[in-house]
């Protein structure tokens, strides 16, 4: 039944062709801009010299992976559940004999799968055409990366889910939006590679769950982390985040105050 939900949600994504093209354009422009800036910064360095563990080529690859994963993983601006609270649709969802968390997770995974195809792969291909990217060194790394993306989406989903549940209390998301921007934009390593931050910040971000959303998959791709280490880290954080989501959901459901009517 959750598979059916994921399937419909997957199909739904293909309805928005214009949005896909526009988004692809934006991701590519940002990819080109950021890559050019980084290459300029590396200009006077000899080939193969790395800054905090990243060579110029790895940095550019990191940039394009970050752009490619924006839509599938979703780092900001996802308030679908808050919207249903405002419109009252949440009432209908709660009245169905299903698990509220899994209902949304399955839909989100379906959405993400579609966006890997419509946004992720094309963005990366454009990056590969314009720049010289690093590719995973073995088929095992390819496979590990493909496994790490659903983990990244799930961790991101749990974060978004919990942020949205705040809406049960606040009925508004503007305040939480800015927190979300920092948590998932910065803490995931989307703004800058986590290794580039000064020691105390870097050490903190490395022990938070949010690096599983981007940094860990990138490290798996680039070969900066062992496959087993990377995936087990993600598995651990995915489990923790799902547990936290359920805990918060229980409190939120208890406190349900539905607007209107």
């Amino acid at each position, binding site marked *: 039944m959750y598979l059916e939900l994921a399937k419909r949600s997957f199909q739904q994504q293909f*309805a928005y062709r214009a949005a896909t093209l526009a988004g692809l354009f934006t991701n590519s422009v940002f990819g080109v801009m950021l890559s050019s800036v980084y290459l300029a910064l590396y200009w006077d360095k000899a080939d193969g010299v790395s800054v905090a563990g990243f060579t110029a080529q790895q940095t550019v690859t990191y940039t394009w992976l970050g752009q490619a994963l924006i839509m599938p993983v979703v780092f900001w601006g996802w308030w679908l559940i808050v919207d249903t609270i405002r419109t009252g649709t949440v*009432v209908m969802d709660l009245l169905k*004999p299903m698990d509220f968390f899994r209902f949304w997770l399955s839909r989100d995974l379906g959405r993400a799968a579609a966006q890997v195809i419509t946004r992720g792969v094309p963005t990366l291909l454009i990056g590969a055409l314009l720049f010289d990217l690093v590719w995973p060194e073995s088929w095992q790394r390819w496979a590990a990366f493909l496994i790490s993306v659903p983990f990244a989406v799930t961790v991101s989903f749990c974060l978004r889910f919990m942020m949205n549940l705040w809406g049960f209390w606040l009925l508004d998301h503007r305040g939480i939006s800015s927190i979300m921007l920092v948590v998932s934009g910065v803490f995931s390593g989307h703004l800058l590679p986590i290794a580039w931050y000064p020691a105390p910040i870097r050490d903190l971000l490395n022990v938070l769950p949010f690096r599983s959303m981007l940094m860990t998959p990138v490290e798996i791709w680039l070969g900066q982390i062992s496959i087993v280490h990377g995936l087990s880290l993600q598995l651990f954080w995915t489990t923790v985040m799902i547990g936290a989501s359920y805990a918060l959901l229980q409190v939120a459901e208890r406190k349900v105050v539905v607007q209107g009517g």
Partner: protein
Amino acid sequence: MPIIDVHRLEKTFPIKKHRTGAMGSIASLIRGDNGGEFTAVNNVSFKIERGEMVGYIGPNGAGKSTTIKMLTGILVPTSGEATIAGLVPWEKRKQLAQKIGVVFGQRTQLWWDLALIESLELLRHLYRVPEERFRENLATATDLLGLGEFLHTPVRQLSLGQRMRGDLAAALLHDPEILYLDEPTIGLDIVAKEAIREFLITLNRDRQTTVLLTTHDLDDIERLCPRIIVIDHGEVMYDGQLASLKSRWGGRRQLIIDYAGDPDAAIASMGNGDMAVTEVDGPRVTIAFDRDEISAPDVLTRASAFGEIRDMSIQEPEIEDVIRRMYDGSIPAGM
């Protein structure tokens, strides 16, 4: 055992009081808004037997939707008890969901982007309805509600009446024992309203589905609900037969008589308590009378003394009047 058993149900909401001005907003931010409590539902009790069709009526803000939400389990009452199909709704919401169908007139459970048939298919999976049962139910709904012409249209393109019919079909796919309807005919044209009423009558007759319906449309009540529960300010004001409400409190039927010419002017003072002339308009005279006091033929006989009668008709008391009078307080509450 009643399928719906509600006992002394109460729900209060905190009132958010917004302070005015800049300092006020800052104060609210620090201390929070706290403006006391509002009692939406107060000491409501009733029992409904399997197969009944009951109208739950009252003015806006009377507490109708709040009650329904508690009976579905999405709202936890402040105090009181309820058992729906043997379950306490707010403790067993998911389990109860299999046994009830809900239609909120102003909301939809259909997926906006999907064709109606796909929404229904998805619900089939959500409720784990066996394929064969689904086919049968879909066929019945298609037949009675005329879904055929828009089954493959995306829900966002449906008219209100079509969407409503789709929602009704969706709520019944899993053969619920109880159907809650919150304003099911709101905003619909006469034809769509009639189709929905016919469908509900058939459903109730053929499947013994218990129906609890809130509405502002008193025609819905007249057509569908032998029993009504009237609620106002969160309290039950009347619970009983619609007919007895009408006969006991709506009281008076009206006899409209057309005379061949203008009747004797003395007709205006005809009757004494058991009947009264309420209007004389040329040859047309309207007489209100109490069915328990005097029969229609007797009224007619007495009226014939004032002139030659050409035509007549009887009007039953209108439920609107009864309920309006009840709200005005001219009918003793809690009879």
